[in-house]
């Protein structure tokens, strides 16, 4: 008389459970790693978008109002946008000088708000094509964390320059 006892502990079942656990553990490990990676990409993408937008404002637009550099006390309400361009990709020396004069902490925070990078720290460097700095605004980016950087080409005082915008957490 045959019996069904013992089938629960058959080699097939043990193999199936082991295989299942291996697949499950691999999946969970990869999934966790994927979630971490996506979160990192997401944060990086937002920062890069903000950097790109700030660089675009500075290099392509004159700002709004266009004579913002002549306004004595700049606030969120009387200046909606800060741009350095007299015309697209041509840096106005007057606008750049005014931009560089925003050295106080409150002015720095205001500039960040207007450029749309208030969540981050930022710096702007104007260099010639050989990499020599012509002008620099605020902080130097840290070396120990991710920094988004956008380089744009422009003309300043008749020479081709690189406007580099740095943004970091």
């Amino acid at each position, binding site marked *: 008389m045959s019996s069904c006892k013992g089938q629960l502990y058959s080699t097939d079942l043990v193999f199936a459970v082991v295989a299942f656990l291996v697949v499950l553990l691999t999946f969970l490990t*990869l999934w966790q790693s994927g979630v971490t990676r996506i979160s990192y990409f997401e944060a990086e993408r937002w920062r890069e978008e903000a950097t790109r937008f700030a660089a675009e404002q500075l290099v392509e637009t004159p700002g709004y109002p266009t004579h913002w550099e002549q306004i004595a006390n700049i606030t969120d309400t009387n200046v909606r946008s800060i741009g350095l361009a007299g015309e697209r990709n041509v840096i106005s020396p007057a606008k750049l000088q005014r931009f560089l004069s925003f050295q106080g902490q409150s002015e720095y925070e205001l500039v960040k708000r207007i450029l749309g990078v208030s969540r981050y720290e930022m710096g702007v460097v104007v260099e010639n094509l050989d990499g020599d700095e012509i002008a620099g605004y605020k902080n130097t980016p840290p070396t120990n964390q991710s920094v988004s950087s956008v380089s744009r080409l422009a003309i300043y005082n008749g020479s081709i320059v690189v406007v580099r915008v740095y943004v970091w957490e």
Partner: protein
Amino acid sequence: MLVTGLLFVYVASAINDMEFSAWKDSHLQRYSMDLLTVLEKSGYLENAVITEDTSQLQNVIAKTSKSLCFLLNIKDSGETILSLQKQDCKITYKRRLITRRTFIARGDQTKVYEAELYGWYKEEL
């Protein structure tokens, strides 16, 4: 169950290998547009056509971002009259981006020319 598990592993693995190319393309596009704009506004494109000397253009293109490669053609009525390429860049790439800009040169006669810029990433060689 095993098939489903393997499918999950494949999806998770694909997420892990994911990269975003849109940002790189967008950066290359803006940089290419900037390059043509500054070459035109600085008068370098016009000079090159009038003097048939591309050294100014070559000098600027040589100093562009190290990770980028460029090939610049200047065309008159669709025919390439001047062509230059960034050094140390081979014309082999997975993807390339083409940017065009028309400009006026006032030589013996005022004519409209077209600057055509091919851009690609060096690491894709």
